[in-house]
């Protein structure tokens, strides 16, 4: 290790109702330029007003990552010209970020964060005939002014896999804190990467969307750097073709000429305010692990796995309200994951909700269906959604627990299998299992094993 150095600059859109500096809806219309106003269009004379919720959400992340929090925040103007800019300056935090010196803990590593700060999103650009050949761009300002958190790591990541794990963990935390909606909000990263072989000459790769792409882009770039000459430059990640290519070298580095934005005013972040937000923080992963193992008494490994995935954790908690947490944990962690892996799908992609899981596990816990039946049902649920109780009824999958009925069957089997009975009586334990097996077959697998066992023992 130590041959690769990676630093990430992640931009995560926050899940607020309105934009950062204007009261436009952040979502709700796909038609271009229908979620705009003079402010996010940068019309002359318009002025920004800060969205309180953004500060609160930023503080949640700062607290969750143990950042030092600035006692007073201000905003700056970063001036540069691009067709997606509404004012040709971006309002961001340059001098004093809201959070600094935080950490995100991976399984095997603590990733130090340099800073977390608030800034606004530019508009969305489309190139009608591809980036290289379009003679004009189309601009949609619906996105302009949406609130972003920028999270910058120290260059301490050492592999594309680690970068991917970091992104995954960050997304989990953002989900946990309820400040990010995976379905609506975008998360992008710029990566700085350098390798020892090329004297750690740093290359910046811009605009990588999502954690799967991070791994792809960085894997490609490391290989490219090994093979080609490496100069300090900025490259773009081309997801379709799986390559990075050089952004046209600029004649001179644009100087952003930062000044304070005096359309905005300093915001005090008092200790009381921080305390209030801390108290309202949703439970974090490590807190869940503690609660799962100490209060709910589930296996620590199960706790770890479940809490690391926001959706799994939500499912587990709901299901544990209806069945024993230990059962819920085992099934959520192992059985559910097993079938998802086999079908190569994620939990978000299948329509298994906590209702289906709860129904299924309640039947299992109450001894109404067998383990095998349950496993078969969950396999089917991956394919399509259905009501578990109805399915069990319609397909007659309920365990037969009628003692008399089972006793009769046992008697019948014993009569039919005198030889096996004698085998058992002379000490062959396996013979007993064969008898149980026969009874089960007779009941088409729906016999209550315990009752069968007891009945056979009694009758023999």
């Amino acid at each position, binding site marked *: 290790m130590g041959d690769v150095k990676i630093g990430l600059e992640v931009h995560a859109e926050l899940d607020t109702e309105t934009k950062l500096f204007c009261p436009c809806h952040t979502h709700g219309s796909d038609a271009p330029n229908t979620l705009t106003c003079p402010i996010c269009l940068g019309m*002359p*004379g*318009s002025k920004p007003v800060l969205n309180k919720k953004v500060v609160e959400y930023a503080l949640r992340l700062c607290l969750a990552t143990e950042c030092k929090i600035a006692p007073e925040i201000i905003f700056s103007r970063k001036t540069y010209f691009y*067709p997606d800019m509404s004012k*040709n300056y971006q309002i961001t935090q340059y001098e004093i970020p809201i959070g600094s010196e935080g950490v995100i803990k991976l399984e095997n590593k603590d990733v130090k964060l340099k800073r977390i700060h608030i800034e606004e999103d530019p508009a969305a650009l489309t190139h009608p005939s591809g980036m290289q050949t379009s003679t004009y761009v189309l601009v949609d300002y619906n996105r302009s002014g949406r609130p972003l958190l920028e999270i910058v790591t120290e260059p301490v990541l050492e592999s594309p896999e680690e970068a991917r794990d970091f992104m995954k963990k960050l997304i989990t935390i953002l989900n946990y804190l309820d400040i990010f909606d995976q379905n609506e909000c975008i998360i992008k990263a710029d990566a700085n990467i350098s390798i020892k072989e090329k004297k750690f000459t740093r290359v910046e790769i811009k605009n990588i969307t999502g954690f799967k792409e991070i791994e792809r882009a960085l894997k490609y770039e490391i290989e490219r750097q090994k093979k080609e000459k490496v100069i300090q430059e900025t490259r773009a990640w081309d997801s379709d073709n799986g390559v990075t290519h050089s952004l046209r070298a600029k004649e001179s580095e644009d100087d952003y000429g930062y*000044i304070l934005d005096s359309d905005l005013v300093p915001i005090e972040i008092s200790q009381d305010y921080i305390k209030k937000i801390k108290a309202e923080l949703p439970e974090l992963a490590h807190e869940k692990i503690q609660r799962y193992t100490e209060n709910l008494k589930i296996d620590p490994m199960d706790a770890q796995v479940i809490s690391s995935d926001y959706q799994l954790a939500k499912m587990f908690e709901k299901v544990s309200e209806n069945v024993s947490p230990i059962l819920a944990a085992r099934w959520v962690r192992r059985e559910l994951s097993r079938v998802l892996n086999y079908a190569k799908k994620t939990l978000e992609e299948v329509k298994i909700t906590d209702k289906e899981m709860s129904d299924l596990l309640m039947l299992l816990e109450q001894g109404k269906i067998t383990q095998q039946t349950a496993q078969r049902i969950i396999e089917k649920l991956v394919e399509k959604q259905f009501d578990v109780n109805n399915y069990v009824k319609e397909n007659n999958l309920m365990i037969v627990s009628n003692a008399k009925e089972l006793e009769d069957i046992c008697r019948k089997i014993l009569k039919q299998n005198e030889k096996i009975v004698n085998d058992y009586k002379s000490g062959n334990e396996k013979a007993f299992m064969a008898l149980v097996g026969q009874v089960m077959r007779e009941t088409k697998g729906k016999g209550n094993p315990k009752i069968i066992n007891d009945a056979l023992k009694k009758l023999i």
Partner: protein
Amino acid sequence: MSSKDVLKECKNINKEYNYFNTIASDAKEGSGKLKSYYISVKDCICVKDMETTSGSEILKGYKPIFNATIIDKIIKEGGSIIGKTTQDEFGFGSFNVNTKNIPKNPFDKTRTCGGSSGGAAGITQKASFKHIAIAESTGGSIACPASFCGIIGFTPTYGLVSRYGLLDYANSLDKIGIMAKNINDIELMFNIIKGHDKKDSTSLNLELNKDTKIKKIGVIKETLNVDPEIKDLILSKLDNYELVSLPSVEKYSLATYYILAMAEASTNLAKYCGMRYGMHEELKGNFNEYFSKVRSNFFGKEAKRRIILGTFTRMAGYRNAYYLKAAKVRTLIINEYKKAFKKYDLLVSPTMPIIAPKFSEIDKLTPLENYMMDIMTVGPNLAGLPHISLNVGFKDKMPVGIMFIADHLNDNKLIEVGKKWEM
């Protein structure tokens, strides 16, 4: 006088004096405190569907889709908006010559009205109808033309009047203010347009000092180094005063003001690039080429000068010595004023060091000499202090202005001075 006649008079005056960039096609009368008042608006303030250019070619044809907050307030009180007055491009100037439509002094057409609110001052002097002008000051753009045109120019404490809808020159320096022929009209309009606006983050939510007692007046010593006639006019009008020295203001306010104003302006003007509004070109070439083309074709020379200087003062390597340093010196200058206000209720100086110069004289001035004309007004503007220019007499048949400055939120003291003033 009917509104039709008012607009006719405006058109006639305009033919001779160039005070308006736009004259309204009609001026409906409303009801409220401003009923029967006709209001002109400096061209940097948004009036919905009325061309708003801020004196610049780059915004030719631009019609905002919203009103500035103060315009809504004025309309609500029944004020009739008669048009947009000419100004130096984006406020860049003290003589209103940095624009296509150059207004002429109402007393002498060969002379300037002052700037940047030249048109506003001109029409205030010339109008025969009931008129109040809405103007704007960044470094003295209300006081200067008021002084040159012989009318009252009032600039309130920074933050008292909403800037929402004001095309920015410099965000920490811009203030909307009022020009009129009599102080009661100023007071009337002030009470209507001031007040907290949640759409402007820098809008103050503070009470004005109700105390209007003026016990002690301090004349700023360093400002008396002017033409002796002007000096005499100023001092002869004051019953009772002491001399007070403000050395930091004298030595550093000009540099501090211009560094901050230009730095902010250079970012405010970045948005003018031929996208979404304003003058365009054909979409050819890449974005840098396109933006540069539009901006170079349609910004005037002074605008280019200030954009370049402003960009320079905030560039890496220069930012500490210029932009950040000036922001700190500003604090010291404000402190110097605050110290003086512990002793004095009002500070006084001539509004301008000269009478309105001729256009031919202005042509000979270097840019720096232009900037130095603001020597009296930049101080209070930099410190966000309320100030008022009143006519104190004439020199060579041209009006001379006296400027009273009060501490933050003591605007009422200035209204009080205006009321007691006799000319």
